[in-house]
């Protein structure tokens, strides 16, 4: 009884102090206690270090940690150090949710940086929304999400495809073979691709989904041969990418005549399948390791120095890196008592930063990022050659395939 009474009194006192201090919105929601305290800013880092997607998420963890180390070494944010709480969600969506809860409620982190797969993001979403925290998500994804609690720094379908699909049609032809892994991301990407093709007068000769982790592409290759498309538009993910490329090559198909155009094949996947199997195929993404800019040279050199000469950077690890700097710029604008998820969200809107890919910008309305789409071809040395860089940054439209829906500052609007 006594303890209850005491905590009630403290709570009332704090509420009073808060109201006097002029930040009532924090105290109305009494769970929103996450804030910077004691000269340090606590953030959560949530990438799988074990399990099936650890292969790629390890590199995201590395890029995030490196950005934090750089910021701290340069004096932190307004003299405060970033304190990273690293958790391993073990490639399991349920564990993602549990660890996110721990970071937000237990550790009182002001923001969490994490996730690679859409499944893990969807698992974390209710946690950060309920606790009104902020989740920084670096991966390209299928769009169709409008949350005030997620900062999206990866590309959405319109950013990767708007220039890519017309370019492919012009260069190779109008017949597309759509192949993807069987889950939400490839289906949404293909949905948008079909809309673009319709406008361009293109044709989908086949649309095919294989189970996640599928490694036997004989039948798919057989169908590719019999339908003779101009372009194989691939959103196959994970180790299936490796099997598909290696079997394509073994079957004697020629990338010069019938290339694969991918939204998911990065330097990381190329290293896993071998440069010979990747050579001649195309990828559209906002960042490639070979991109020429002083910022990228610095990023790649720092990454190799920190984690090893054989390591590659790719379009998701680059987003991990620059989103930490966006966070820094937002927090810099705030007084210490304002460093809360709400404060950071307001401050980060419209922030600009010169990232390795170019100068990026966080959209005020939908909290997605303006990026620089590039089209590149893989080479046998395991790197890409950038063939086309967009003339200007590209606005994110997470609902590009759904013209009657729009993500605005106040939430999803139906037209």
């Amino acid at each position, binding site marked *: 009884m006594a303890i209850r009474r005491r905590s009630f009194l403290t709570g009332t006192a704090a509420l009073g102090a808060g109201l006097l201090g002029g930040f009532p919105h924090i105290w109305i929601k009494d769970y929103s206690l996450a804030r910077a305290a004691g000269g340090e800013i606590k953030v959560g880092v949530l990438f799988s270090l074990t399990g099936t997607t650890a292969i790629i998420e390890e590199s995201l963890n590395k890029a995030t940690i490196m950005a934090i180390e750089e910021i701290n070494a340069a004096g932190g944010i307004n003299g405060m150090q970033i304190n990273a709480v690293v958790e391993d969600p073990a490639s399991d969506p349920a564990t993602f949710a549990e660890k996110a809860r721990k970071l937000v409620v237990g550790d009182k982190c002001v923001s969490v940086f994490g996730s690679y797969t859409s499944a893990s993001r969807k698992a974390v979403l209710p946690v950060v929304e309920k606790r009104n925290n902020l989740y920084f998500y670096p991966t390209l994804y299928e769009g169709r999400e409008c949350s005030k609690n997620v900062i999206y720094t990866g590309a959405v379908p319109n950013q990767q495809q708007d220039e890519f699909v017309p370019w492919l049609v012009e260069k190779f032809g109008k017949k597309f073979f759509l192949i993807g892994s*069987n889950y939400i991301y490839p289906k949404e990407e293909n949905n948008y691709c079909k809309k673009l093709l319709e406008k361009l007068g293109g044709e989908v000769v086949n649309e095919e989904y294989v*189970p996640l*982790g599928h490694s036997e592409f*004989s039948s798919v290759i057989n169908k590719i041969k019999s339908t003779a498309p101009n372009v194989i538009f691939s959103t196959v993910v994970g180790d299936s990418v490796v099997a598909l490329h*290696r079997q394509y*090559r*073994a079957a*004697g198909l020629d990338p010069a005549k019938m290339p694969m155009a991918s939204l998911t094949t990065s330097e990381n996947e190329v290293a*896993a399948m071998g440069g010979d199997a990747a050579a001649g195929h195309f990828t559209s993404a906002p960042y490639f390791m070979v991109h020429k800019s002083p910022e990228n040279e610095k990023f790649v050199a720092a990454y190799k120095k920190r984690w090893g000469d054989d390591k590659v950077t790719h379009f998701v690890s680059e987003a991990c890196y620059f989103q930490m700097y966006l966070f820094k710029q937002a927090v810099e604008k705030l007084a210490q008592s304002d460093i809360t998820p709400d404060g950071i969200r307001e401050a980060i809107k419209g922030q600009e930063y010169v990232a390795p890919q170019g100068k990026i910008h966080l959209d005020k309305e939908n909290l997605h990022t303006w990026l620089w789409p590039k089209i590149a071809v893989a080479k046998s040395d395991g790197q890409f050659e950038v063939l086309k860089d967009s003339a200007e940054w590209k606005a994110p439209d997470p609902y590009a395939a759904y013209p009657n829906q729009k993500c605005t500052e106040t939430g999803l609007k139906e037209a």
Partner: protein
Amino acid sequence: MEFLFEQFITGLSIGSILLIVALGLSIIYGSMGVINMAHGEFIMLGAYGAWALKAYAGISLFPSLIIIFIATALLGALIERGVIRYLYRRPIDTILATWGIGVMLQQLVRLTAGGELRYVEMPPSLAATVDIFGVDVSAYRVFIIIAGAALFAATWMLVNKTTVGMQLRAVVQDRSIATAFGINASTIYTGTFAYGAGLAGLAGALVAPLKSVSPEMGTGYVVDAFFVVVLGGVQSLFGTVASSVLLGQLSGVLAYWQNDTVAKALVLVGIVILIRFRPQGLFVTRVRT
């Protein structure tokens, strides 16, 4: 006609990989009754063996096959002597123990070779395609089909035409009578397990150039291998061949008609229905138990 032939080759390619992957499991399960959950990890070790021998010793795929067979067979013998032999006639314990061994092998590889995906270079002589009756077929796929047939023939000869094979069949028929006739059943069991493990290692090395190599790769293969063995009938080598060809052709046709996702589901449904009406599988070899 050309289309039908192409479809047939596709089915044969899928089937030959199933056969190679299932043969080791079939031998161990069929003659010893041991459900080896670590079978997938032996396959994974074979694939990593092919990768490591190329990356660190510069040995190309063909010569490394021999080394991989011997190494995984030795590991199999070690596991049989150290663990499995104490668990005969305790099927549940065997499943748990072999599953545990599998998990340990996976983590061991993850800790030593790292978690990233690897690949195995295709031998240059087989990187091209060959023309068979007007159809372009990957030379490596043809090689896999031939290798599957050869491995089956060798295993069949070993079991049916050699003294060791006769002793094995005797032990399978009735262990105590066989022992009374002076056959060393425990050596036969060790040898069988080692041979099965060696076949699994070989399978891993053979499929690696077409697939990706990762510590978790075994999980998918062990499921496929069990389908083949259960459908074919556990004690029948011919059943294993027949069911892998059948499953390969069926997957090929269904995948062509619909897609791979549907094919996988329908094949599974088919197996479940068949097992319901014919629990012993397609082919039965009569044994005394």
